[in-house]
């Protein structure tokens, strides 16, 4: 027996090739930047700023990833987030007048209304995909355009700004030193991870991604599962909207549009198979951390942010090449 086979690391690598690769990359990025930007990268303030920046993109990426696991895609997540952010912000602006308003209640109502709106978009996506039979990329391309249109029409392209302090706390406050958005992100990641791993519809979501026809013939109500996945994806876009408007202190049609393709990139980088069936929330979370560390590390080094965008693309190509040789 050679030494290599008894090595616990190689055992781990054999069992979870992609996950170990991501852990390795995570540590590498952490160590590399800690040495390259001494005294700035490995600091509480840097990690805290990462923890404030990551959740928006993180929750949107999870919204994207769950649809990709079922072999689909959801191009409407950003449009949905913007519309539900606009709903939240306009309700707050309209209902909070003067000192006497019950601010807490209004914020809760507004956020719930926003969630409801994002849930409706998810429902529409689910119906068009599962029942009418349109391919997910086309269905959500259509709803993306439509939902964007509704956002532009309802705001006439203007920004709704100036949210109550209670709302700003969601995106900018901390509980016991941990940023609130990060707490929300962690809860979302754990819940979605639990759903995928332990609930029948979550498991079926993987099966549909592997082979939809076989899943249907083995007695799974695939239409219901696809509906659930898209409703959840819409709802998560709403949760991201809550953090987004709070951090921007405003809502508008067209915010964060450049995130759309980045969420696909982060999902695939985290091990989600673009044709569906494989991938874990843990991998996606690691991928988000790596991408965020790369961009904040390069930022601290004074490198242009466009270089980090380029590097994200290079990393994605790189990891796909490695995955190709792992399979052999």
């Amino acid at each position, binding site marked *: 027996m050679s030494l290599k086979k008894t090595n616990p690391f190689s055992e781990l690598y054999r069992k979870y090739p992609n996950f170990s690769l991501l852990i390795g990359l995570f540590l590498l990025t952490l160590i590399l930047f800690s040495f390259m930007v001494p005294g700035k990268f490995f600091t509480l303030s840097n990690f805290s700023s990462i923890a404030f920046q990551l959740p928006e993109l993180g929750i949107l990426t999870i919204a994207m990833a769950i649809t990709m696991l079922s072999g689909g*895609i959801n*191009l409407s997540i950003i449009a949905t987030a913007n519309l539900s952010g606009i709903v939240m912000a306009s309700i707050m602006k309209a209902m909070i007048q003067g000192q006497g308003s019950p601010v807490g209640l209004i914020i809760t109502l507004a956020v719930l209304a926003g969630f409801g709106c994002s849930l409706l978009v998810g429902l529409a996506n689910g119906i*068009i995909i599962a029942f*009418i*039979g*349109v*391919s997910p*990329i*086309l*269905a959500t*391309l*259509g*709803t*993306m*355009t*439509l*939902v*964007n*249109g*509704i956002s*532009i*029409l309802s705001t*006439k*392209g203007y920004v709704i700004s100036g949210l109550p302090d209670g709302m700003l706390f969601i995106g900018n406050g901390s509980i016991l030193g941990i940023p609130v958005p990060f707490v929300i992100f962690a809860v979302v990641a754990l819940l979605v991870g639990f759903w995928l791993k332990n609930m029948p519809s979550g498991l079926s979501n993987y099966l549909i991604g592997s082979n939809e026809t076989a899943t249907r013939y083995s007695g799974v109500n695939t239409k219901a599962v696809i509906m659930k996945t898209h409703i959840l994806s819409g709802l998560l876009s709403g949760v991201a909207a809550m953090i987004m408007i709070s951090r921007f202190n405003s809502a508008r049609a067209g915010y964060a*549009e*450049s995130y759309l*393709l*980045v969420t*696909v*990139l982060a999902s*695939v980088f985290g091990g989600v198979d*673009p*044709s569906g069936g494989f991938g874990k929330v843990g991998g996606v979370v690691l991928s988000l951390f790596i991408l965020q560390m790369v961009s904040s590390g390069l930022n601290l080094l004074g490198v*242009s942010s*466009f*270089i*980090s*965008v*380029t*590097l*994200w*693309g*290079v990393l*994605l*190509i790189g990891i*796909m*090449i490695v995955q*190709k040789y792992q399979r052999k």
Partner: protein
Amino acid sequence: MSNLLKKNEFYLVIVIFALVLFLGITTDQFLDPGNLLELFTSYSFLGTMSAGMLIVLISGGIDLSFTATATISQYVMSTLIIEYGGNIFIAYLIGAGVGVGLGLVNGLLIHFIKKHPLIITIATLNIFNGLLMYFTKGKWIYNFPMWFSDPHDVMVFESAEGYIYPITLPLFLFFIIFVITALILKYTKIGRKIYALGGNKEAARRMGFNIFGLTLFVYGFMGLLAGIGSVSHALIVQTVAPNAIVGKELDVIAAVVLGGASMDGGSGTVIGTFLGVALVAIISNAVILLGIPSYWYQILLGTIIVISVSITAINNKRNMKKEAEINVA
């Protein structure tokens, strides 16, 4: 007749005809040849790229990086002609060359990594766009040489009243490219092989088709048209900006899909794509001419996309059911 009802183009023609009739009656500018020529000139760059996207979709792939390719072509072309001079032919040649080069990069990566083109081209979109922004620092270019700013008309018609209707070079190229794309798809071996590749890749491979060559051709052609379209765009708007085209990738795909091309590959026609582009152009013109607030444009477009892809899906389902029935008699 029943065959006609199954064709996506048939519905498109009806919708377009209805729109044209409606706009012709309600507005007096729409059917004016000047308006129509201007409208199609302004859509010629989107149209040029949609022909490339059509071939990519037929081959069963997708390309999201072509907008970055187009913008890089524009910057390289403008920088070179401002620095060294040249003529319009050289400008198009530079744009086309850069476009083909970047398209081939996509083709190579897609063939060797063997992952879904959607993901590969998202990666190259990030790489191309990141590098572009880094090197140009987001600067706009508008100090074009005189010869570039002069009107480039291929033909000029004059009406009896003395109005002048020019066929501009971008518009002319748009039509020529559609004709060439149609000829390639219909009458060349490579065109028929691209349909076969999109229909069933494994079958195409076992037939002994050179998949690598086909992939290079498809993405190289997309790059070529992105490059040509980008020079047309610069010629029309006389400015080059880093964010003028990037972000429009889904608009082009929407126009091609409206024209009946399938995301699964293997089907799609040049006429359908032309009608798809025409529909998008006419809707945007209608919103302006009818004085509807421009916010409605996106809602109209979105509704039309949702309805159109739903009708296609329902038709496909029906056809599948028909094929499943065994007709003994």
